[in-house]
Structure formats: structure tokens, C-alpha cells
């Protein structure tokens, strides 16, 4: 009986060892990647009006700032077929057979530094949408099937969107699916030019209003002041 006890104790210890070793081995195998935060997404789907921020309790006010690994605005724009297009995936993707939920979001939900890419992972402004590869595709080839005449067009410049010297700039882009301002404007992967100086003030739209470019102009009626005194 005693012997059995000892044996099973050892077996148990051994099993625990295997599990622990396996775990640490597995985590060693995982790509060197430091998630900043691991909160699970809650859900929303284009229903919310107004701004979304801090949805996943990321501490945008205290994001690391690492000048050596910052993207430029040009790099940021390069990944888009036109201004406002869903960016391509600029790196190879290990697993093609998934929609992205469990792989892409590992890095892009909370960001973090990837040694493999020597860069900070950009944080997705809409982590509730998990079919990532529905809109974002990697580029496996550099060739074209045939040439195109499509021109990328102009992307917005920075520093020209304020009304007064020093007044809060307006938002020059549509915010559809990009309502979480800070996920693009206050993370280590944010291009310097568009990084906000005051990420601790989380209600962005209190001061920054949209310029009219995401309003469907054709839908707005011309406002004509009625002259009531002349009404018949």
C-alpha cells in the first residue's frame, strides 16, 4: 500500500513535471511577442454611433513609446490600395486555414512588440469583427496579372486640418469601423505624425470634429432660409 502511494506520488510528480515542462517549452516556441493586455473582446457590430474607445481597457495613456521602432505615415499609407481601403497584411501569414479570430487577434487585439518583425503590432480598431481575412489579405506575389491604370489618389496630409493656429484639428477621414481613435493614434505602432500628444484625454470627439467627407453630400438638402414674413 505504502509502495503504491510512493509510486503514484512519483507518477503524479512526473506528470506535473511533464506538463510544466511542456508548457514552458510551448511558450518558448511561441513567437517572441509580448502582449500588452489580453482581455477578451466584447461585442459590437456597427451599431454604436459615436466614438468607441478603451473598449478593451487598453491603457492608451501609458503606451510605450519607442522611437526606434516607429512606423512612418508613408509606410502606414503604403499598405492601402486607396485612401480608406482595408490595409493588406504586410507580412506572411502562417495559417491560411482560419478566419483570423484566433491568430490575427493574438497580436492585433492588444498590440505588443514582435521580435520577428522588429515592430509593434498595430491594434485593430474593430476587434469585435473576427473574420479578419474577409477584408485583409496577405500579398504572396509581387507580380501583376496585368497592368492597371488605377491611381492611388492623394492621402491626407498632417498639420493642415486646424482652423486656427493650434486649434484642435478636424478628423479628415471617415470613422466607419474606425471609431476607436486611440487604437490608431496612441499606440507604439502609430506613425509619429499622427500620434496624439494627449492620449489620456479619451473623449477625442469632444474637441475633434469630423470634416464633412464622410457625409453623403448628395443626401444633404440645400438649406434655404425661409422668409416667413413674405409667405403667402
Amino acid at each position: 500500500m505504502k509502495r503504491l502511494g510512493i509510486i503514484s506520488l512519483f507518477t503524479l510528480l512526473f506528470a506535473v513535471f511533464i506538463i510544466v515542462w511542456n508548457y514552458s517549452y510551448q511558450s518558448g516556441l511561441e513567437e517572441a511577442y509580448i502582449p500588452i493586455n489580453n482581455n477578451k473582446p466584447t461585442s459590437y457590430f456597427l451599431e454604436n454611433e459615436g466614438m468607441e474607445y478603451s473598449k478593451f481597457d487598453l491603457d492608451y495613456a501609458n503606451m510605450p513609446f519607442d522611437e526606434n521602432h516607429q512606423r512612418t505615415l508613408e509606410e502606414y499609407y503604403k499598405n492601402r490600395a486607396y485612401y480608406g481601403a482595408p490595409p493588406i497584411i504586410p507580412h506572411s501569414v502562417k495559417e491560411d486555414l482560419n478566419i483570423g479570430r484566433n491568430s490575427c487577434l493574438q497580436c492585433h487585439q492588444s498590440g505588443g512588440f514582435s521580435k520577428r518583425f522588429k515592430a509593434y503590432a498595430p491594434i485593430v480598431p474593430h476587434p469585435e469583427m473576427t473574420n479578419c481575412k474577409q477584408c485583409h489579405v496577405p500579398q504572396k506575389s509581387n507580380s501583376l496579372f496585368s497592368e492597371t491604370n488605377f491611381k492611388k489618389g492623394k492621402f491626407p496630409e498632417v498639420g493642415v486640418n486646424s482652423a486656427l493656429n493650434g486649434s484642435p484639428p478636424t478628423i479628415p477621414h471617415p470613422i466607419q469601423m474606425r471609431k476607436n481613435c486611440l487604437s490608431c493614434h496612441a499606440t507604439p505602432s502609430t506613425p509619429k505624425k499622427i500620434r496624439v500628444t494627449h492620449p489620456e484625454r479619451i473623449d477625442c470627439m469632444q474637441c475633434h470634429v469630423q470634416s464633412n467627407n464622410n457625409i453623403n453630400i448628395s443626401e444633404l438638402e440645400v438649406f434655404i432660409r425661409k422668409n416667413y414674413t413674405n409667405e403667402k
Partner: protein
Amino acid sequence: MYTSVLTDRRSFIKRMALLSAMTAAATMFPGILFAEEQERGLPKNGNLDWKKAPCRFCGVGCGVLVGIENGKAVAVKGDPKSEVNKGLCCVKGYHSVIAMYGKDRLTKPLIKKNGKYVETSMKEALDLIASKMKETIKDYGKDAVSIYGSGQWTIPDGYVASKLFKGCIGTNNVEANARLCMASAVTGFMTSFGMDEPMGCYEDIDYADVFVLWGNNMAEMHPVLFSRMLDQRSKRNIKIIDLATRTTRTSKASDRSIIFEPQTDLAIANAICYEIIKNGWVNKSFVEKHCNFSKGLTNIGYGLEDKFKFKDKPEKITFEEYKKFLEDYTPEKVSKLSGVSVRDIKYMASYYGDPNKKVMSLWCMGVNQHTRGTWMNNLVYNIHLLTGKISEPGNSPFSLTGQPSACGTVREVGTLTHKLPKGVVMNKKHREIAAKIWDVPVENISPKPTYHTVEMFRALDRGDIKFMWIQVTNPMVTMPKLKRYRDAAKKEGRFIVVSDIYPTPTTDIADVILPSAMWIEREGMYGNSERRTQYFEQMVEPPGESMSDTWQLIEVAKRMGYEKQFYYKEETHIEEIYNEYIQFHKGKKHGMAPLEVLKEESGAIWPYVDGKSTQWRFNSKYDPATTKEGFDFYGKPDGRAVIWQRPYEPAAEVPDSDYPYWLNTGRVIEHWHTGSMTRRIPVLHKAMPYAYVELNPEDAKRMRIKTGDKVKLTTRRGEIIMPASVNERGIPAPMQVFVPFFDENMLINDITLDSFCPISKEPDYKKCAVKVEKV
């Protein structure tokens, strides 16, 4: 921290003007002009004109907003107001506008002279087509000319094609590529309900508790709807079950992935019905009040031989007989045949049978491209009818379409050999309605259907058809057993006209190539999977001499002497045609929304009655066409839907020792059909540059094949060499391979089989036997 570059030396006044201009003045006081300089800095996009359209590509029919700048389409975003996609698109939709700007866009008509294509004027090309048609009709009769169109035809395109060929010329040689994707869905609806198209709508997704996907890789093929399902899953407790022959992104994202042996879906569906009856889950009052039981012929063949004919003989049976028939389909028996565990069959049956669960079944090509496609459609309806889970929010057998207007144009306008905009050519009354609206003598319309698509190309091969006009489709990539039909088209004495926007393998066989205006370069309408008709205006100018397919047909019709019927004015013809067309569908059962409504809203669902879309048909709560309380399947004379006794029968070609693998073909998310548009979109081409053959990792290991290795596929039709793909986009079950068909450099259809469902005549692209070797 650092200081950002938020300020520069712009003057106070300019900034003032900019802000106020951008926020208010521009729209409210259009008279005020801005100095160029003041607008500098903001992207030109800032003043984009956003116009709404349905997406060019798939049958989901997302609403998109296209950004127009200086006469060019430069950007796309999802239309937040669209009920279909609520602002979300997929990668094809977002980049769709780039498809218009390929460098090799066809801009001038080309005529083949001594083996070379010579540029000519549109007038000359149209003259030639008209005279060729007249000559062919004179020499060989009306049935020697034909038109082969598309589920990507706009409604006006299909309508004028049908009017010209069926009404004026008097031949039923009108077919469309939707025969290759939707015909089984149509015959399924007709046999079960007597009326085409789904009873429910996309909103069902917001109410259903369980989703069963029958051979449907929605994550890639109907991505926006799939995202809508995922969104529901994050909010409520729902289950997604993926029943398929291949592991895909959909399987990975679903709650349960069930893999079955090809063709055995017939048996699985029957096994589910068996379980429902055995466990007393039948909704008795529903079945008694609203259903009949029928059986049809069995051993119905595969259509492999020329001039194959089949006519089903429906026969009423009793519930008891049906029950007896199902005894062959116990879960235990079916499990052996299908490879699906007894537990999984019972698991699915229990969801269908649970009266407290709302179930939505969704399917597309897996069920339709099937040598028993009509039966498979019937069988899914059987499950929903036995349990009464139909025609109400969330309870919905939903047949998805692939093309943006397979429903709107091919099924509703009726551009198939047996169809008319209302009804079928065989029916005298229907011919009379058509003759009246078309303003032709009723004798003009032939009461006999001629060739369905496969047979039409066979007739071209035999020489029964001499002239074919192909619009908005690429059959020289998509026809099964392609080589035969490519050779046919090249034969002496055949005259082929192809209207397209880029050079394709189909324009390669053309005698005349007409440059077409695509999508928003013209005006038109599409009709999507959920019976929603959507309108788009012309937003940009078509390049060169490109002309809409509608106007090409009208020009030829006039040249053939049908000015009276083709009286339309160039500026208003789309409106005139639409108004003429909707006369066919007047009434509560199929009324179409007036054009003003389509222009205002993100489409409308027919039947459109008293200013309202009908979201759920056959249910008196929602459908004003019903004549009794509760359910009324008014497509059938007695108002009862039919539960069909349909057995399992094997596929046309089954793997054997010479050809031991199954060959399955399909699409990928990045490319639309044959890629003639999406491959010209750099982002999409770079993401998916060429086709490949997917192998099961075990098979690959055994044959020592790794990704990128060259693999030879051989069937009884021929062989093809392509790179292998192991553990990438999809994983076929053991002893199966999968090949996407978008790549014109690797024409997989050269080796597929042209067997089809004898009832729907839709080919089975999903199953034939193939040998796989490493080279």
C-alpha cells in the same frame, strides 16, 4: 513624449475658411467657391461624391458607396444604410472599383479577319452581327442562333435578350451561366413549393439559434453573411454546424465541423428525417394542413450522352409510405455510407427536431452543383417542412446564390430556355402575357424549350447551333469537360460574338469582340439572394467605345427590323425597360418595387406590395398574398408544399483503382469566378496569384508531396499539372483533392466531367474521379 506636427504657418483666414468650408458651407451654400489653396492638404477624397450601388461581385449583394472624383471611381466603403451588410464589405467589394481600370481593358470592337483581330467601329461590328444573325436564320432556321448570358447580366440586359430572342426572333435558345450554379435551386423550389426563390431573408440570421451549412464555405464565399452570423454568436448563444466534404475556414470558425463522403448528403438528409419521425418531432398539424407527400422516378441517369432527355413522373404517396421508405436511412446505415458518426447525425436531427430552436439551413454550390441537385434541395426542404420550421423569422431553409443577379436576372426575368419573365414557354397563357407586353404575335413564341447550357454547347459542337452571342461570362474557363466545347467553338462555320471588358479565353474563340461597359459605367439593377432588387446609376464614363450589354442588344435588334419592339430612347431606356418588365410581375405574389423606390433605398424585396417589402413569404403574418390564416404555399394549386421521397444514388463517376481520388472544384475569397476582373486588381492578384491543388496532408505525406511541388492530375478527360498546396487554405478529406477554378492558365475544367442533374440540367463540378501523381 514628443511634440506633434500639428501646427504650421498657415494664415488665420485660410484656416478659418477651411474649417467652416469643410463642415458646413460647402453643402449649404453651393455658390461659394473655394480657393484651390484652401483645400490643399485635405485629400481630394475629402470632397468625394459617394454614390450607392450593389456590389459588382457576389450574390450577397452588399450595398456599397462608391467614391467618385473627377469622373473616376477612386474608393469604396460599405453602405451603413444597407440592410444587407450594414456597412461591412469583403476584400473584393472594397477593391471592386479597381477592376474597371486594368490597362488591357477592351475599348474598341474587334473583328477577326484571316485569323487576326482588327479594330473596327461599333457601328460596323453591330452591322456585322445583325447581318450574320439574319443570314444564319435564313440558312439554318431560328434555332441555329443562340445567346448565352449570365447571372451578372443586369435585369435590363437579360430582359432585352429574352425579348429579342424569344419574342422577336422566336427561338428559345436563351441560356445563362446561372444554369451552372442555380438551376437546381430553381427546380428544387418549383418541385417543393411551385414558386422560385427563398421564402425568408437575411434577417433570419438575426433570429435563428442554429445554422446548418450544407456544403457551403460561407467564410469565403458569402463572407459578409458569415460575419453577420459570427456577430450573432458573440451576442447570443447560437450554434454553427458546418457539414462539408472539405475542412475550410468555415469549418474552423464553426462550432462543429462534420465531414461527409461526397454525394452522401442525400442519405444524411434522409437520416435526419428518419430521426425526426422516429423521435416524434414531426410538427403534425403543420404537415397535415400544409404538406403533400410525393415520389418521383429513380435511377434517373447523369446526362452524359448527347440529347439526353428526362422527365420526372411525380406520384402522390402517403405519410406511411414515406416513413417506410426512410427505414433504409437509419443513422447506423447512413453512418457507414457517409462516414458521419451516428452521434453527429442524431446531433443535427435533434436541433432540427427541437421545437424551441430556430434553425436556418444554408447552402449554395455544394447542394446545387450535384447530379442529384434538385433532390438535395427537396431533401433540405423536407426537414424544414416535417418540423414546420419555415417561412418565419429564424426558421428558414435558405438557398444562397453565387452571382449578383442570378436571382434578379436569370431567375426572375427568366433567361433560361424554358422560361419567360412570367411562367414558362410551355404554358399558353404565359406566352400570351409575354406576347402582349412584348408587342409580338403570340405565335412568335415557341412553346418548346430547346437547349439547356451543356446541351447548347453540345449543339454548337454538332453544328445544330451556328451562331452564339456570349455576354458577361467566360464559358471557356467554366464549362465542364471544357476541351470538347472549346474545340466546338473553333469549328468551321461557327460564328461567336463575345461581349466583355477584358481579353479572356472566351474572347479568344470570338469572331467579333464587343467592348462592354461594366457595372457603374452604365445604369442597371441587380437582384440578390434574398429577393432584393437594387438599382445603380451610371457614375463614370465607360472607356473608349464600350457600350452596355443592354444597348448592344437593342442596336442589333433594331438592325434586324424590330424597331417597334425596341422603341427605347437612349437616355431613358433603362427606366423604360424596367417599367415594361415589372408589368409581368404585377400582383401580390411577385410585385416589384417601382424604380423611384429603388433609387431612394438600398433596394427592396419582392413581393413589394402597397409600398412594403415582403420579408417572409407564405406566412399570413407577413405575406399579403396568402389567402388563408397561417401558412399558404400558394405556388401550388392546393396551397400545400411537397415533401419528396428522394433516395440516395451514387455520383456519375466514382473513384476506382485507376482514378482513386475525388476531384472537387470551387472558388476562393479573393477571386470572383474566372478572375477576369479580380485578377486585374493588384491587391487580390498578389494575395492569390495562381491556382493550386489542395491535398490531404496524409495523402501528401504518403506521396512525398509538399506545398509547391508539381502534381499531375489525370481524369478520363485529360491531364493537368499544377502546384500542390498542403495545409494551406483548405484541407480536403483523405483521398480527395480540391482545385480553385479562377486561373485561366490552369484550366481545371479541361478535366472535369459534364454530368448534370437530369431535372435541373446543372452540372456537378464537385465530383469526378482523378488520379494524382507527383511529377
